[in-house]
């Protein structure tokens, strides 16, 4: 299965052949966008929802002093802005961090998926709830964890999320020192100090100012990382079966 969108949604539960076919159509016309380009600006009233096929994008806000706060990362398979199908004006901006392949999904396609594809509807609802869970974890991270634990936790999360959609090619995080600072709410200089600290402890590698995870188990122990909030493989884990209305029963406990 090459469809990274389907791979992501399958973490919520099984999808049927008709779902797969529809998702294939949805991603059939991607476009390329370079790094550090905006997809939507704060205040826009967009007509399309965006989906990341390759690369990494982020949700961010610019503060009056010009500094940037990154409040979410969108990895391959992630929908950037499902809420624009319901909410009006954007209350934040979305931009690429790396070169990306993006798919524009018209609002009426989203409506079709929600109305006519119950398993996809379930999975989209799941992905929105997981986005919220990630935001909660980031809030805890920012408010309660030391910067070194916070950064280690972020690396564990990105690593796990990439692995969940089979996109973990070289464990390399395409995040710069500045971007890491904007995610963690610390200065660029502080971020650099934290990166050096994690590298000196043998938890991460740094090549050409890109970070890769050296020892995931040690890193997640250091960060006290528990992947439960990502709710991966949820459909299998709790017996939820979105196919129930088609006659397929719950799997036995």
């Amino acid at each position, binding site marked *: 299965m090459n469809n990274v969108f389907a791979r992501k949604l399958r973490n919520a539960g099984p999808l049927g052949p008709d779902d797969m076919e529809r998702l294939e159509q949805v991603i059939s016309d991607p476009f390329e966008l370079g790094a550090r380009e905006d997809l939507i600006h704060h205040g826009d009233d967009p007509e399309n929802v965006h989906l990341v096929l390759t690369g990494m994008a982020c949700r961010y806000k610019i503060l009056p002093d010009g500094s940037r706060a990154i409040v979410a990362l969108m990895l391959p398979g992630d929908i950037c802005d499902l809420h624009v199908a319901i909410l009006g004006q954007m209350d934040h901006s979305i931009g690429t961090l790396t070169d990306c392949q993006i798919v524009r999904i018209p609002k009426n396609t989203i409506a079709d998926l929600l109305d006519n594809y119950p398993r996809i509807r379930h999975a989209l609802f799941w992905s929105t709830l997981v986005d919220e869970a990630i935001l909660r974890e980031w809030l805890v991270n920012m408010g309660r964890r*030391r*910067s*070194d634990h916070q950064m280690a936790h972020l690396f564990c999360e990105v690593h796990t999320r990439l692995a969940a959609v089979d996109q973990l090619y070289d464990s390399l995080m395409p995040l710069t*020192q500045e971007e890491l600072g904007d995610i963690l709410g*610390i*200065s*660029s*200089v*502080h971020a*650099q*100090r934290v*990166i*050096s*600290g994690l590298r000196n402890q043998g938890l991460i590698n*740094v090549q050409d*100012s890109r970070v890769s995870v050296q020892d995931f188990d040690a890193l997640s122990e250091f960060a006290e990382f528990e992947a439960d909030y990502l709710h991966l493989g949820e459909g299998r884990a709790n017996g939820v079966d979105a196919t129930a209305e088609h006659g397929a029963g719950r799997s036995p406990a």
Partner: protein
Amino acid sequence: MSLFYFDINDGLEAAYDDTGTELADRAEARKEALAVLAPVAREGLPDSMKCAVTVTVRDGAKRPIFHASLTLVEDWIE
């Protein structure tokens, strides 16, 4: 933009910066140096404050150009 290096001693360990950070100018480098002192001190408390938390900024040629330190004074009253 110029490269500046920030060597930070958190009171427990002296970290020599071999990567550096791109910043607009010396004034920006001073601001960054001052801004990093408080969070580094806070995260290391209480151990870090047995001696001062310090930062030394070096320019692109790795010459020291700025130094700042943060000291906490504490005493039991009784």
